[in-house]
């Protein structure tokens, strides 16, 4: 029984981080129809920025917020300086559909190499600010620790802020309108280009928080070659696909579902399936419900 509860709690925590990443992917997908594979690089960059800030002022939470804004700025910069150029240059031709994918992979490579040049290739540690020893109930010790609780709370508050922005503000309305029908939005006076950049910035913020929280979910050590960030990207992508790739609510649900499923697989089947379990989940989702859990099936545009 205690194992069952533990499994759910672990799955819930990692699911929350996946959900953030999925939101980041969905935001970019909705604004520019691109899956941003450089998101893994952004998450890594934010972890290193967090590391740098913690080194100098040794306050984790300030570092988290600074990393969030830095991630937003970096992501917006990529959109302005790069994606606009790319979409203009390769809007037609045989590799038009592949070019954005390849380009974001190239960006990923540049970001990773840049980070390794600045901070070196060895492991660095951002010590999690709260204890990672679990709460205990009576004689049992749960794996759910104060740090994990803080992660869940951080993610929940960020999701809350995002949904307030989307549902209650004019900016949110503009974001939704340009995603839904860019041409009509433009006619209605929405500055679609600006809104696009904003979508990327929000995505960068979510991805950055996900990156730093990911390191704190473990022992806090990472290097430019850490597989965790690739896995975070994949998990975020899979969570987004489970949620239908269009909806932020779907992304959050997808993240939690994926977190729980992988947690149960690892706990009850085998721990070494860590890397392959997400892939299997993705295949199953794509075969059973390719439009996602809450997505609506639309005819594919040729």
């Amino acid at each position, binding site marked *: 029984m205690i194992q069952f509860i533990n499994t759910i709690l672990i799955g819930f925590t990692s699911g929350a981080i996946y959900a953030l990443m999925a939101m980041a992917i969905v935001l970019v997908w909705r604004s520019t129809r691109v899956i941003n594979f450089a998101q893994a690089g952004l998450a890594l960059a934010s972890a290193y920025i967090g590391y740098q800030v913690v080194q100098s002022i040794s306050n984790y939470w300030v570092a988290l917020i600074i990393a969030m804004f830095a991630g937003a700025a970096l992501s917006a910069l990529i959109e302005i300086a790069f994606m606009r150029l790319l979409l203009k240059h390769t809007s037609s031709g045989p590799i038009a559909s592949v070019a954005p994918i*390849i380009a974001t992979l190239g960006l990923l490579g540049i970001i990773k190499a840049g980070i390794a040049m600045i901070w070196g290739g060895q492991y660095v540690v951002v010590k999690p600010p709260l204890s990672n020893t679990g709460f205990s109930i009576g004689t049992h010790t749960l794996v759910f620790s104060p740090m994990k609780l803080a992660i869940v709370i951080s993610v929940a508050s960020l999701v809350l802020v995002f949904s307030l922005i989307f549902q209650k503000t004019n900016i949110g309305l503009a974001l939704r309108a340009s995603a839904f029908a860019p041409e009509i939005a433009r006619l209605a006076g929405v500055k679609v280009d600006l809104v696009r950049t904003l979508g990327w910035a929000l995505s960068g913020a979510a991805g950055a928080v996900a990156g730093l929280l990911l390191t704190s979910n473990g022992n806090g050590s990472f290097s*430019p070659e850490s*597989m965790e960030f690739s896995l975070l990207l994949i998990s975020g992508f899979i969570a987004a696909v489970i949620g239908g790739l269009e909806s932020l609510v779907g992304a959050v649900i997808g993240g939690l579902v994926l977190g729980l499923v992988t947690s149960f697989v690892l706990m009850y089947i085998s721990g070494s399936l860590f890397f392959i379990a997400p892939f299997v989940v993705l295949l199953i989702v794509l*075969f059973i419900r390719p439009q996602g859990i809450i997505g609506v099936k639309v005819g594919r545009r*040729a």
Partner: protein
Amino acid sequence: MHKLSNKKRLGIFLLLGVAIYFLSGAVDELRVYQGASVAVFVLGISSIILLTGYSGQVSLGQGALLGVGGYAAALMRIHYNAPIWLCFSAAIIVAAMAGGLLGLAAARLSGPYLAGTTLALAVGLPSIANQFAFLGGEQGLLFDVGFPPLSLGKDFTQYKWFFWIASLATLIAIFWLQNVMRSRYGRSWKAVRGNDVAAELAGINLTRNKTLAFTLSAGLAGLSGALLAMTIGTVSPSAFPLSLSFSLLTGAVLSGVTTLGGVMIGAVTLVAIPEIAGAVASRFSSSEAVTNNLPGLLVSTLLILTVLFVPNGPVEQLRTRREHRVNK
């Protein structure tokens, strides 16, 4: 592409083979080893060109298929002590079967979905080696093709032997691939890439075509993986990392994904860049962190520049420019 008759092309390939034969005698060990790497990359890149350029599907998980081929060859060698050519055939067949399965799934996906799925595969598959004991875990398995036969002379080195095997396998595979591209299947792939709805209306079975492309591409990748395993001497999860998949994709983009003609460009670049980066870094006597990561930075920058400015690759670019001039 100007049309050549089959006989002429066979002649060209034979000439290439003879040239490689003499070349391998003329250059030093390191170059011979790099030559073998080029052959490995040529195959890996061709497998991506076949998939992306000709059938319009993008795979970020080609490295995983190379891994499948490498493991299949090593297992054949270890358990059945099979001759080399049989090991390579096994690599092709097993990888092609894996690719066929993947292709069945992939045929239902498009664009970003397929990219994400294959990426997940590239991350996940190498870890399977840790799951099953017969795959040797993190250390992996030995893959030893044996010493060169004595009849080749005493000073015939191991690397030269690798190089010969790799080039011969690559030449044969590329010749075969060119034939496939010019066949009915090649033409239907191009049609699907151009406009899949129109192709379907013209009576092309999309699922079957895409699956076939995936299968053949995986076969090539498997052979490439077996050759790679031969040059390193082992197969292990770390020999087929995510970065291998990315390198191959980069090579394919540098070569131009729409034609096989430039495949050498990408392969040579991939092999040459670490050396160029090393030379540049030592010239400016920079720190170790910079030196180690300069190749990655160069490759990624090249990739982005290519996508931005010569999206169809240098060969295709030259040809369209020439056609322009002729038409004017």
